[in-house]
């Protein structure tokens, strides 16, 4: 039978080479591109976070030097010695920017951490609790989304008498809504998995299930959400300080630096506004980069499991 098949099938020996040739209908889009290579992603996350840590340390160390005034270098345009130029008091703008970034990141860290904690607790409660609890949390989210972020920030900051606590608490209290939704969805998904059902059958308490199974399950996505909270927190801190509700004017915060530079815009001292702003953008993009890369890793991991 096999022999017959051989002779009848269109596989003549002489034409073997031609027959072997196949049409390529579709080629996979290359996965080896930088953006989706796992090792590159890991290096990206670590690298971006390292640079940010460096900014915090360098900025803290530079803070005293940033406040030094020297009238000999008043209004200096950017040069090699002072890459970002100097302001009307002769302060070095590079050092001031560095100090401001460090301050922004630290405040962002505090506010984002509190905010993330709120969303972890509320999201878990909403997903694990009764209908009423879930409804209440959802309603609270709607409520938070009801007032423009910036207006709410102004209100909270005003309620707390402005200053450091006003802005930190304000940011912590206004940024949990979106992450809460993510956590809630993740926990709901986890709740449906068989091992939770098994744990329930075995008589594990709700709290134990949350601590042993759900929090570890949710954690990766939570971490991504947490890192991606920073850009919002930092930008809002800068904005609210810029408007005059945030950090007190004597601190070298970026909002203050930019707010002061407003006065000098019309005199053509462009470097006072341009460089601090660009550095802020770069910092925010670094967080975006770290968060984005981490998300890709986490998603790939989840898909694999």
């Amino acid at each position, binding site marked *: 039978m096999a022999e017959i098949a051989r002779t009848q099938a269109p596989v003549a020996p002489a034409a073997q080479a031609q027959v072997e040739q196949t049409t390529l209908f579709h080629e996979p889009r290359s996965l080896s591109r930088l953006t989706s290579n796992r090792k590159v992603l890991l290096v990206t996350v670590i690298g971006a976070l390292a640079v940010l840590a460096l900014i915090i340390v360098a900025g803290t160390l530079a803070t005293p030097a940033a406040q030094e005034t020297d009238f000999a270098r008043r209004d200096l345009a950017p040069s090699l010695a002072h890459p970002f130029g100097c302001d009307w008091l002769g302060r070095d703008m590079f050092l001031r920017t560095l100090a401001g970034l460090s301050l922004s990141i630290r405040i962002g860290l505090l506010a984002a951490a509190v905010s993330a904690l709120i969303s972890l607790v509320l999201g878990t409660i909403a997903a694990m609790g009764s209908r009423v609890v879930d409804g209440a949390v959802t309603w609270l989210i709607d409520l938070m989304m009801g007032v423009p972020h*910036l*207006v*709410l920030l102004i209100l909270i900051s005003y309620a707390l008498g402005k200053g450091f606590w006003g802005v930190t608490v304000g940011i912590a209290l206004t940024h949990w809504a979106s992450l809460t939704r993510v956590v809630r969805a993740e926990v709901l998904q986890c709740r449906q998995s068989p091992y939770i059902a098994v744990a329930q059958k075995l008589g594990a308490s709700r709290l134990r299930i949350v601590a042993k199974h759900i929090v570890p399950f949710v954690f990766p996505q939570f971490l991504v959400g947490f890192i991606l909270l920073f850009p919002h927190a930092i930008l809002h801190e800068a904005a609210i300080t810029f408007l005059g*509700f945030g950090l007190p004017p004597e601190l070298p915060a970026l909002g203050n630096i930019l707010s002061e*530079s*407003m006065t000098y815009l019309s005199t053509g001292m462009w470097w006072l506004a341009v460089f601090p*702003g660009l550095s802020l953008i770069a910092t925010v993009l670094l967080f975006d980069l770290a968060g984005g890369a981490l998300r890709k890793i986490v998603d790939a991991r989840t898909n694999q499991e």
Partner: protein
Amino acid sequence: MARYVLFHIAKCVVLLLAVSFLCFALVNASPIDPVQANLGQAAYINMDPEKRAELAAYWGVDAPLWESYANWLGGVVQGDWGISLRYNAPVLQVIAERTANTLMLMAVAWVVSGLLGFALGIAAALHRDGWIDRTIKGYCYLLAATPTFWLAMIFLLCFSVLLPIFPIGFSLPIGVNSSEATLLDALHHLALPAITLSLVGVANIALHTREKTIDVLESDYVRFSRMRGLSPAEALRNGCWRNLLLPALTLQFASISEIFGGSVLVEEVFSYPGLGQAAVTAALGGDVALLAGIAVISAVLVFGGNLAANILYGVIDPRIRRGQSESGKSARGGVGSDVGSARGSRPPRRMNGQRFTEQNEAGGRG
């Protein structure tokens, strides 16, 4: 359908009440004493003592929060929103004067950023991972990382200081009365703030539209369309744009909140006399009544947008429009036997109310 609309209106009203209480409570909780904060200011000095006492009583710390809220709310409902200390005029009047400016600014930014963002998002999704997509994405990430007020400052620096194309600020030429100013004057002053706000708004809309478009392009129905010989773009043109319209509406109306926040910053930089600038002035000067009033107005705008989105959803989505009235008439039947009467055999998928079903399922598995 009527029930659907009523449900959403009721939900909005309840939320609005809660938000107004939140705003009022926050404003009242401040350690900054409103009367004191305005001491020494012209408005306060020019006030007669009687009014001062009245104010002190109105914002008095001694009255319990609930009571003063009830008083305030009663006034708000009757059109008495209190007196602005800063502007020495009724709050409603201050708001009315400034709403026109802000609404003009927001409307331009809303329409431009919405249309541009929608178009860019779809273009990016259709060319996914190509250079068009990467350019658009890069632009969006960059803009999303840019502080709105900084962009406003840079535009001011570039197009008003270095290249004096646009005026430095305000809504009208200095020294010109609003009745004398031409429409052209107004537009000239509006342009730069509106451009700034539009550009910033584009980023968010475009990125979200891109995500939604990719979801639609990967859906079973677009896949089927492709297997029927249509390109993805043709599938979108041939009906699948409706599936994009729904999330686009939600996005567009949700962006009102963000645009309002942006307008506060942009108005501040451009000294544009709108609600945002008034809010900043009010909060800096302890003008409690005005601050609460503007916060409530902003919430009304946001909720109004949400409500509009939800109602439009109901109009567009046949599963809401036609699903409910016909449901349960007949069960799923065999081929041909029940043609015409077999409507509603699948329960309409609703975006609300479905969220509890998954929990029950999880419980039943153990």
